[in-house]
């Protein structure tokens, strides 16, 4: 079976099984392209499904770690707005008195509290988009500071900002809000939440932003330095969520403050439920597609081998062993599997990664793309699984070839 093939310039090269398989596939270009296309669809779907499910799981893990607070207390009727800002970075402004934090810090079972102050930038200020500006208190903060990528060497000073991971601004860049420029002093690590598109500053800088807003004729409802938008609450380990929740509501009501209490666990459970549902759909779809592709390939290979019965019998008469013929069939199937798989992966890379932002926006769920090492591993896995579909589908055809006797095949149809 191993012969010498002569190229036009007279050089001789070894004619191995794979070379013959490649030549056979080249000769049936349309059939080969269709089969490769089929495997490419499978590879694309499998890899995309793996990346999406890994990214959603990563987003959920990141959210679990980075929510930081166990409870978030916001002014009455603003829970939805707050969740929009927290999960999707949708700009929102709502305020209540600063004394809320003092009341909360006095409750048994609450270990830490830290205030946050929300401002919405004008859409014309910074590259034509509205940004959620979040003022935080660096001295008491336990939500933002741990996730500033590359430690800030000093406390955040007045006029300095920390930007979310999805904003393009680098450390040292300036951002303009209400006509005043601020320096980017740090970037936040990717969280998969609204923090990724928010801008953080200390309370002094937030006050400065408000002053400039007032100069421009924009008066936020509370502008006197005694307001905050939310209080982030850290409870003791092993806390009883309903008890703490009720205590917070009661204490604030006693003080005449109406507030909504948002529990991290509730947000996490809701997100986890949506993600689980999505993952089930992806898994079922991928498995069904794999089975369908393998079945289709199997049918096509069976027909193809049936068509080539005489050609294969001639090869046997010329001295090809049954083993070599099986290798030839497997070789053709493997080449189709590998080629299609590679095309599918390239397409997936061209769509998934450049359009990652769009996908995460449309899914509206916490979404963090896996690390390059994970992506490489998942690509290998998809390549192997889809590449195997071809050889797996050709097993039956190869078996039939070995089984048939040459003389019977040659005399068929006489």
């Amino acid at each position, binding site marked *: 079976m191993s012969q010498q093939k002569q190229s*036009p*310039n007279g050089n001789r090269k070894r004619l191995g099984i794979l070379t013959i398989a490649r030549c056979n596939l080249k000769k049936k270009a349309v059939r080969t392209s269709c089969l490769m296309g089929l495997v490419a669809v499978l590879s694309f779907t499998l890899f995309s499904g793996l990346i999406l499910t890994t990214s959603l799981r990563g987003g959920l893990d990141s959210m679990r770690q980075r929510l930081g607070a166990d409870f978030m207390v916001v002014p009455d009727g603003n829970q939805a707005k707050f969740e929009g800002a927290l999960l999707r*970075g949708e700009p929102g402004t709502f305020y209540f008195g600063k004394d809320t934090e003092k009341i909360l810090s006095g409750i048994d079972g609450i270990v830490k509290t830290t205030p946050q102050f929300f401002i919405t930038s004008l*859409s*014309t200020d*910074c*590259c*034509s*988009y509205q*940004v959620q500006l979040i003022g935080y208190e660096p001295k008491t903060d336990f939500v933002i500071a741990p996730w500033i990528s590359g430690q800030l060497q000093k406390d955040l000073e007045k006029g300095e900002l920390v930007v979310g991971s*999805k*904003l*393009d*601004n680098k450390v040292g860049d300036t951002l303009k809000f209400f006509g005043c420029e601020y320096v980017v002093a740090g970037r936040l690590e990717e969280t998969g939440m609204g923090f*990724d*598109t928010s801008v953080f500053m200390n309370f002094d800088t937030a006050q400065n932003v408000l002053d400039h807003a007032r100069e421009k004729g924009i008066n936020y409802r509370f502008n006197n330095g005694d307001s905050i938008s939310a209080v982030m609450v850290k409870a003791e380990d092993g806390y009883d969520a309903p008890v703490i929740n009720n205590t917070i509501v009661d204490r604030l009501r006693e003080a005449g403050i109406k507030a909504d209490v948002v529990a991290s666990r509730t947000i996490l459970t809701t997100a986890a439920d949506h993600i689980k549902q999505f993952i089930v759909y992806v898994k079922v779809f991928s498995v069904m597609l794999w089975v369908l592709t393998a079945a289709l390939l199997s049918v096509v290979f069976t027909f193809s081998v049936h068509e080539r019965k005489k050609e294969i019998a001639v090869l046997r008469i010329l001295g090809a062993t049954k083993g070599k013929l099986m290798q030839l069939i497997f070789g053709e199937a493997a080449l189709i599997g590998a080629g299609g798989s590679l095309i599918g992966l390239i397409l997936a890379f*061209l*769509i998934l990664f*450049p*359009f990652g*932002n*769009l996908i995460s*926006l449309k899914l509206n769920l916490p979404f963090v793309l896996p690390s390059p090492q994970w992506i490489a591993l998942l690509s290998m896995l998809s390549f192997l699984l889809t590449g195997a579909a071809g050889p797996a589908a050709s097993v039956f055809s190869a078996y039939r070839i070995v089984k048939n006797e040459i003389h019977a095949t040659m005399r068929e149809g006489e």
Partner: protein
Amino acid sequence: MKNRIITGLFFLVTGLLISLGPTYLFKVCEAMGDDFMKCHWTARAEIGIGLLIAVLGVISILVSSLPIRLGLHIGAGLTGILAASVPTVLIGVCAMPGMNCHAIAAPSILVISLLVIIVSVVNSIYLIRQNTKNTEEMDQKSNDVSSREEQ
């Protein structure tokens, strides 16, 4: 002939997409009065770059010489690199991920440019091989003629 038409048409279509896409198909952000954002200038730059790729495609359909087509395709590939670097490195788009230009226009330009680069590289290799093959065949023929003359 088939390769000439297919690749030429490919460069023509992708060039037009790069050129007109950011303005008409996957639009960049609208100007805020007299304020133009980065994405506006990116779209303007891509008009010229995309048209250049389209023109290279048209010329490569009309020219049959392999070396000239090779040069045109290398040129298209390099212009593809330029098209990809405008929204990513040279000018950029708005920083906010939710903006049209960031979420749709920039990735679309990037993907189309990458396709231009990939096709240009693959086809350049193919054209180099074809050219070498043709040269070898010509040499073979001239050798045959000279050996016949010697006989």
